[in-house]
């Protein structure tokens, strides 16, 4: 307790800076994810679709909405979207006539959709291809339905399966057996679904925690390189014990902020314990870097280098498949473990070993 009180005496004058450095990971994560979601719309291509009365194109519209790069607006009349296209507010415009479905059923393959584009359109071909593939799928469903209904009449003498019944059954079977979407697991292992293509707040939070931990623990560099360190030889606690208690106290304090951040930012898939073990690993890593740095400038330079190194290696891990015998290397990247919802267990073990060795060494290097 006296150690904590002594540490508080040293940090009392910097409590505002300390509070800010502990809050900033949460603030930065909220700001960045908000900006991302706000601007991501701006990066999508605006496309208009006109669906005239009686045209049944729900599945095609859903397919277009699912495309990440398209911002889709649906109209029932051509005038307004055409005017907007002329003003370059849309990249392209596609019109599904009232007799679109009839044309498909009649096996018509040409000129079944009207399309408009401008001299500034740059995704017209891509959207056109996408619509073509969706229409092809729709045609396939018509064919299937017709075949099944014909077989039913010929073999069973009845016709009580509708087009929708047949299509729904087809989709069910596709979802259950489609090899492209099938997940393969080892027995008993549950594979996490890959994240949707949106910004993962855990990733931002992970890196923010790393960077701002350097601001929290920079006192370690100052005090370790100060003459005051030698006075601990004559005190009731050693310098290392004093620093260890300081480290643990601040880490516990930061856990409070992490718990708050967890409830604000994360979804139910994220494990709180994983976040807390990540915090322990990062704090230990930063603590020892600060301990070994000769001055504040070199500490901040090291901080920047470490940040860049982790960022680059994480990017490489995402695009390079590690050979079978080396996949364990990814377990030593703390942020990668965090976003993969893994416990950072190897790093925790490493941290404990390093602390043990550090404490066992003579408290002051004497010549």
């Amino acid at each position, binding site marked *: 307790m*006296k*150690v904590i*009180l*002594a540490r508080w*005496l*040293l940090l009392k*004058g910097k409590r505002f800076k300390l509070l800010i450095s502990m809050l900033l990971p949460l603030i930065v994560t909220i700001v960045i994810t908000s900006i991302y979601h706000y601007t991501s719309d701006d990066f999508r291509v605006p496309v208009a679709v006109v669906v005239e009365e009686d045209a049944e194109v729900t599945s095609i519209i859903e397919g277009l909405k699912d495309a990440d790069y398209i911002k889709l607006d649906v109209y029932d009349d051509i005038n307004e979207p055409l005017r907007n296209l002329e003003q370059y507010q849309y990249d392209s415009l596609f019109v599904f006539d009232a007799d679109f479905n009839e044309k498909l059923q009649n096996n018509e393959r040409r000129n079944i959709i009207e399309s408009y584009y401008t001299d500034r359109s740059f995704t017209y071909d891509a959207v056109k291809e996408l619509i073509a593939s969706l229409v092809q799928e729709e045609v396939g469903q018509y064919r299937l339905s017709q075949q099944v209904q014909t077989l039913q009449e010929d073999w069973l003498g009845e016709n009580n399966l509708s087009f929708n019944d047949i299509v729904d059954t087809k989709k069910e079977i596709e979802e259950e057996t489609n090899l492209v979407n099938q997940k393969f697991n080892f027995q008993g292992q549950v594979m996490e679904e890959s994240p949707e293509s949106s910004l993962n707040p855990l990733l931002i939070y992970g890196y923010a925690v790393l960077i701002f931990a350097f601001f929290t623990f920079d006192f370690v560099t100052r005090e370790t390189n*100060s*003459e*005051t360190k*030698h*006075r*601990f*030889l*004559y*005190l*009731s*606690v050693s310098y290392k014990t*004093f620093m260890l208690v300081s480290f643990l106290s601040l880490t516990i304090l930061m856990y409070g902020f992490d718990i708050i951040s967890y409830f604000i930012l994360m979804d139910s898939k994220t494990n709180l314990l994983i976040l807390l073990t990540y915090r322990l690993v990062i704090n230990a890593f930063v603590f020892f870097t600060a301990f070994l740095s000769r001055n504040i400038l070199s500490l901040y330079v090291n901080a920047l280098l470490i940040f860049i190194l982790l960022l680059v290696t994480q990017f490489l891990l995402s695009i390079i498949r590690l050979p079978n015998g080396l996949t364990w290397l990814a377990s030593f990247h703390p942020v990668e473990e965090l976003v993969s919802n893994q416990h950072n267990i190897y790093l925790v073990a490493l941290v404990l070993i390093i602390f043990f060795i550090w404490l066992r060494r003579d408290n*002051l290097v*004497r*010549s």
Partner: protein
Amino acid sequence: MLEVKSLSKKYGEKTVFEDLELSAEAGEIIGLVGENGAGKSTLLKILATLSLPSSGEISLMNQTYRKNEKKLREYIAYVPQDIALFEELTVMENMKFFQKLSRKKVSKEDLKALLSSVNLQADQVKVSNLSGGMKRKLNLAVSLISDPKLLLLDEPTAGIDLRSRIEIGAFLKKLALEKNILIIYTSHDMNEIEQVCSRVVIIGEDPFYSKILKDFL
């Protein structure tokens, strides 16, 4: 109280000092003088357990350093030449910090009395705003919180004004007398050595110091 026998210190091939002998009693103030590089600060650091000798024996209060180093630190205080204080804290906050972690129980009144004895009243002033002389007084006061039996000072009055030097010198004499503490310190100031010390020990082989001491004392 303090016995130093055949003490030697070497760094690789370089010998700092060899076969040093020293004996001192409580209540003495011993001045260490010698040319630069003679080993004054090195000897002080060895006595403070900050450094290990290459050979020889030291004992304090009949306990050898070799076997009882950690225990003996309870009785030793070392005042380094560099200021060893937290610059961002006030005078009293520095005292409180070291008092909290001290092996001895010391009250706030005792801390104030200690500051008063070194004539340092500005206890709410940040260390960074103190003069050189006041910093040295605080440097000394902090070391005395633990109520040591052996006080080691490395040039305690280096670079400070005359008044502060005289005050510190007077304080050390009073401290040695009243508390029966053995004080050993290094200085280049012969006037100070003459005024304060009860005994002078020459470190090194420069004959200049033997001659100058004879003339002075």
